[in-house]
């Protein structure tokens, strides 16, 4: 269980989320909704810090190494599982054993042919999927992801979200698309002006709530 009790979160000395309480149970799939700058990223980072050993984290900027291949970018998640010597060897020439592990992950993300493409040469959506692949390889139970699918088309979004759902027990995912959130997640949390303005199970969402969420996510307001 992830628990925040009346905490205030700061970003560069500025208060972003004021006195918030939140509990997320094991097995829950939660979508965070809010416009850019509302504090979703700060909240996710904090949730990650609460339990870094068992969580995989995908920051909004993804954290890919542009000059490395997709394979190596994903392998980075396993650096701590092998010796330095093996890591160096695998950097120079990818070991077949590692390819066998990473290939199925890429297949699932529809990236099979791109395994040895440099990350810097990928499209926005392919970069996001690479970061998702890295999180999957880690094999942790919790995923904390910051808008990981914003650049994917509808078909791939569907496939990627369902494989994420099968790989991770608990998910907290920042999104700005209300429809995707309501369709694929169990629970939505709306954030606005430093406060949680809505926190409900998706099955209990009313039409008024949906309208409210659209409003929360709209950058024009």
């Amino acid at each position: 269980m992830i628990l925040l009790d009346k905490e205030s979160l700061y970003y560069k000395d500025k208060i972003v989320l004021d006195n918030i309480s939140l509990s997320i149970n094991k097995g829950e799939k939660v979508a965070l909704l809010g416009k850019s700058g509302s504090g979703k990223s700060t909240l996710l980072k904090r949730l990650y810090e609460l339990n870094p050993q068992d969580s995989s984290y995908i920051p909004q900027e993804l954290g890919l190494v542009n000059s490395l291949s997709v394979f190596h970018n994903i392998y980075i998640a396993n650096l701590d599982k092998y010796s330095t010597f093996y890591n160096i060897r695998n950097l120079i020439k990818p070991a077949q054993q590692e390819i066998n592990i990473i290939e199925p992950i890429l297949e699932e993300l529809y990236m099979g042919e791109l395994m040895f493409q440099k990350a810097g040469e990928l499209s926005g959506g392919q970069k996001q999927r690479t970061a998702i692949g890295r999180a999957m390889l880690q094999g942790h139970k919790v995923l904390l992801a910051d808008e990981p699918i914003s650049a994917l088309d509808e078909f791939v979004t569907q496939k990627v979200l369902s494989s994420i759902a099968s790989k991770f027990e608990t998910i907290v995912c920042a999104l700005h698309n209300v429809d995707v959130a309501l369709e694929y997640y169990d629970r939505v949390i709306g954030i606005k002006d430093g406060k949680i303005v809505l926190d409900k199970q998706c099955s209990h969402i009313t039409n008024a709530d949906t309208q409210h969420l659209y409003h929360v996510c709209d950058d024009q307001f």
Partner: protein
Amino acid sequence: MLIPNIYTMSVMTSSKNLNVTIIFAFIFVIAFINADFSISTLDPLSEINKFFSGITQIEFSKITIYYDAIINTVRIAVVAIFVSAFLGFILAMYFHFMIVRVCLAFVRSIHELFWALLFLQIFGLNTMTALLAIILPYSATLGKVYFEILEEYDVFPKELQSSKASRLSTFIYTKLPDALPQLLSYTRYRFECALKSTAILGFIGLTTLGYYMQGSFMQGYYGDVWLLLIIFYIIIASIKYWFNKYLAPFLLMMSLYTLDDFSGFNLDNFMRFITEDIVPSPIRKNESLFEVYAWFENIAVNEIMPGIFNTIVLTQVSLIMTGLLALVFFPFISKYFVNKPSNVFGNIVLVIFRSTPEYILAYLFLQIWGPSMLPAVIALSLHNGAIIGFIMGEQSNEVKLRSDSTKRKIELYFFEIVPRIYSSFLAFLFYRWEVIMRESAILGILGIATLGFYVDSAIADIRLDKVVILLFFIALLNILVDTISRKVRAYLRINTTVKSSCDLV
């Protein structure tokens, strides 16, 4: 001389640029009044005439005489850059320690020729001296720049770095891959510098290209001087064809295998150097503390102070002249001011001035005008003005003008182009400041009374204790200039990336 700047200023938004320009122009005027620009040769025009008519007397068949010098120059530079890059990389890992920073600043601020003069006393005139003279300042510079490059590419999120993975693993996966192209490109640029430095070492007797150049100069064989210069330009211009990832390791093996002449090295010399030679003579002779003070005071009053004064005068005059020449040079390679053929011609002239080390230029002008600050200022400002003019020309080509902007070139220059690139122009000039200062000190070897002059005389008198004191003050002066330069750049808030500063340091 300041008219262009004042015109420019009128349309410039930043008053800070104006402040800095006025302060340095004022210092320039004071320095200019104090500088000695006398011409001591009897007939400078005929010297110039003789030099240029040398072009017609080039005997290309003589190139065979210089094979050994060419090979020696290249292999010393190759071994030196590999060792320097290796040491520089290790030093970059420890650069965050204050003590490493300070030590490297000192080692870096002493010119390779001074190091060579010093090692000459320990190891004699051989390859070891040449290698160490390059490796010491170069690994210090590479260490600093490598550190800055790696810092710039330190963008991998900390949250994604596992604390359980080894530091080396994390480094080679998350930092090195993106920084590597930049590291290699700077090392290649430094290799070009190492070739120039190695050639220059010939002027103090090591058998590289400079050795034969000086010999030909002295005997008035200007045809040979030209031939050697042409060989030098070809070597520099062709670097990318023979110093690449395929050939460089092979070159290194060959160089290591064939480098010879390590004669004269013995440990006794080294021990004598550090335990006796560099100990101040009154201490060595067990004299009173008062004697030590008198000894130091004598050096301070008669050599350090006038030396520092002249070095600063030469540096400040050359700095402003460099700036003015760069402002004059850059239109000749800018598409807004000249047509294609003139552009090509301008490029060739600038490349020649850029590639000829200021030491060789100064040596040449000295033959023409005799020893004074005149040849030194001309040499420093031509070389550095060409370097900065070149980058400014490239920048001006990237400027996009409105279609209704003026077509008159003079207006275009003062109201459109220069105001747009003036900030980066100042940045480049201040990056180059420290280099100009280092060169000003070294040109003393040629007879101009900067600090290098006193170092050279002290070496001639075999008073190494004095040499070390003088070198210490040279280093101090350089570090001071570097610090002021950094402060000025911060004041001007010039955002220059490591990339743009790399070719200037």
